[in-house]
Structures are given as C-alpha cells and as structure tokens.
C-alpha cells in the first residue's frame, strides 16, 4: 500500500472538548468517541495504547513483519475512519477496536491472496481450532494492551520475568535491584493486570 494514512483527512477540527485534551487516564471508550469527533490528540493516545496489540495481531495472522506493519497502518486508518460509528452502550472499546483491526488484517490477507476466504490461520497455534485461535488471539490482544497500562518499572520486571528466561534473582542482578524490590514490582504488576483484565477474560 502506498498511502496508509490519509493525512489531510486526519486533520483535527475544533470541538467542544478542545480545551480539555485527553490524558493518560482517559478511558479507551472516551478516546474512541473523541476520535469519532476527529480529535487528533485522542487518536495519537489510542495509537500508543494499541499499536503493539494491533501489530501482534497482524503478525500472528500474516506471519510477515512487513505485511504486518502495513496492516497495522491500515488498521489505524480504518479506526480513524470508523470511530464515529462506535457506540459505547453496545460494548467496550477494546472489542470494537479488535474487530476493526482484525477486519483490516483480513483485508490485507485477501489483497495478498486473491480468492482467499479471509479465514487465515493463526500462525502461532496452527494446531488449534478456529474457536481456540480466536480466543487465543483476543487474549493476546487484551493482555498486551493491559501491559501498556503498567508503570514502566513494573512492566520491565514482568516482561523480564515472563519472557527473558531469567529467574527472579537473575532479573534482580540484571537490573541492579534488590531481589525484594523485583518481587514487589512483579506482584504489583500482576495485581494491576488482574484488575485491568477482570471481567473481560474471566
């Protein structure tokens, strides 16, 4: 794709909320509503919160980093264009964003393979059935999004504890922190994740 984001259409227009820019505490749903009103700052905040989730979804589905990067840009273009159709009373923003992003990824898959039905396999769990793939995909989407909400120092120890292959002692040594501090940050991070994910993935 030559042009993923139509910049002139992304130009912000004045709104009633212009005096109150979105903050880090602004819920996703509120951001999405503001994006529907062409709030540029809200869009950028939403982008930062979801870009890793969208890219992860695209990468799992397409299996190629370049195509996944293009699909990610297309997904955010689609989010910008469709945000005005989002209705908070019909469900959480995360689900709406997931659906739009997934459709963009499927479109990318179809464009690359004319005639494909769009039900492309989940590359990281090819042995699973469609229902399991869909669930796995959404779990990754929500968990990666929730990780973005952690304090950087908590996210750092959680990511090291889970995906670096290091023990807690090795994480402590790596970061130059007391072991107790690493354990506290890990527990705090897990507790925060539990709160963020409560209800949605029970």
């Amino acid at each position, binding site marked *: 794709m030559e042009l993923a984001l139509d910049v002139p259409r992304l*130009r912000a227009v004045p709104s009633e909320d212009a005096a109150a820019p979105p903050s880090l505490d602004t819920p996703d749903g509120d951001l999405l509503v503001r994006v529907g009103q062409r709030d*540029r700052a809200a869009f950028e905040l939403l982008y930062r919160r979801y*870009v890793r989730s969208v890219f992860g979804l695209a990468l799992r589905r397409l299996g190629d980093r370049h195509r996944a990067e293009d699909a990610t840009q297309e997904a955010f273009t689609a989010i910008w264009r469709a945000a005005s159709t989002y209705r908070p009373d019909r469900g959480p923003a995360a689900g709406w964003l997931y659906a739009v992003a997934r459709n963009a990824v499927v479109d990318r898959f179809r464009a690359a393979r004319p005639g494909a039905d769009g039900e492309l396999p989940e590359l*990281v769990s090819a042995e699973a059935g469609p229902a399991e793939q869909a669930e796995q995909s959404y779990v990754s989407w929500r968990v990666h999004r929730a990780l973005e909400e952690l304090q950087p120092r908590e996210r750092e120890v959680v990511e090291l504890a889970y*995906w670096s292959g290091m023990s807690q002692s090795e994480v402590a040594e790596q970061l130059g922190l007391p072991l107790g501090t690493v354990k506290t940050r890990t527990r705090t991070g897990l507790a925060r994740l539990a709160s963020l994910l409560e209800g949605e993935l029970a």
Partner: protein
Amino acid sequence: MSRDPRFDELLDGEALGAERERLRRAHELLVQAGPPPELPPGLADARQLDGSPRLPRRRLQRRATLLLAAALAVLGVFFAGYAVGHHGGAGGAAGLALKGTAATPHAHATLEVLPETAGNVPMKLTVAGLPKLPAHTYYDVYLVRKGEYYLSCGTFVTAAGGRPLTVTLNAPYRLQHGDWWVITRHAPSTRGRGPVVLRPA
C-alpha cells in the same frame, strides 16, 4: 518464550486466598498471551508522536528511507575508500553498535566486520548484559537485508551474570550496502525465529 516462570516462585507465598487466585489468573493470561512483539521502527516512531500533527505516511517514509540509504551508501563508499587508503589497501574494519530491546534493556554489543578474506567475511561480536539461557536455547546472529531476515551468521550462548563475551563469526557471502544485524533468542519451542534481543543502536 524461553520458559514459564512458576507462579509460586514469583509470589513466594505472599498473597493468600482470593487475592492469590486473582494473581494466578493474571499469571495464566500472561503465559497464554506470550510476549508482545517488538515494534518495527516505522511503528515505534509513531509511538513517539506526542504533539506531532501527523502520523507517518508510508510514501514519505519510503522516500526518506531511500534518501537515507543513498546518503549512507555515499558515506560508506567514502569511509571505505578512506579506510582502504589509510591502511594501504589492507582494508579496514567496520563496527555496528547494538542495543538491547525491551526484554534485554541492559544488553549491548558491538559487531565488528573485518576485511573479507578468500570469499569469507569474518566478524567479531562483543556482547554484554545478555542473560544465561536455559538448556537447548541459544542466541542467533541474523543478517538483515532490505528489511528481511536474510541469513544466520552463527549462534552463541552466554554465561550467568551477563558478563562480556567475544564471539568470532564467519559469513560466507558478500555483504551489501544497507545490511545490518539483529540478535534473536531461539528456544526449542519457538516456531521460526525467536524474539529480537539486540538491534542496531
């Protein structure tokens, strides 16, 4: 993912009852989700758009990339010529600094590409801050060409404590302008290439 950290090891029995079950659920979701992907530079830059009026446009990105590549090629030719001239035709070494990704924030390395000999390109990698890996897991040095993983240049493991380590590699192919390297972590359970742990600084 190299391994799943044991829940009991992480908490040391600090949380009890319902709170412990909440944390266990979060733990299981983290394990199920797997690591988030490393963002490519184009998307990572967009993450730092605070206050910027525009998101990146791919056409502009590509044009900028081409201009940058052209500029680097010119600089490369200049410095290569300088090195050859300076060393009386023996050729000089070129170095690439690598920095750790989110999973290895304190890791760093330099990759020194030595003059070609008999069709081979020897390289010397000096790396520090990479954790020791579990059995059957290793680090893989990948050549990246035109934005794609091209070939593995060799593998290595590290000792505990992330102590500095020097590895000698040998690439049996000619390098091209614009080539660069990343280091990934490969585990037996990994399908395809593992996550990137070091990339150009």
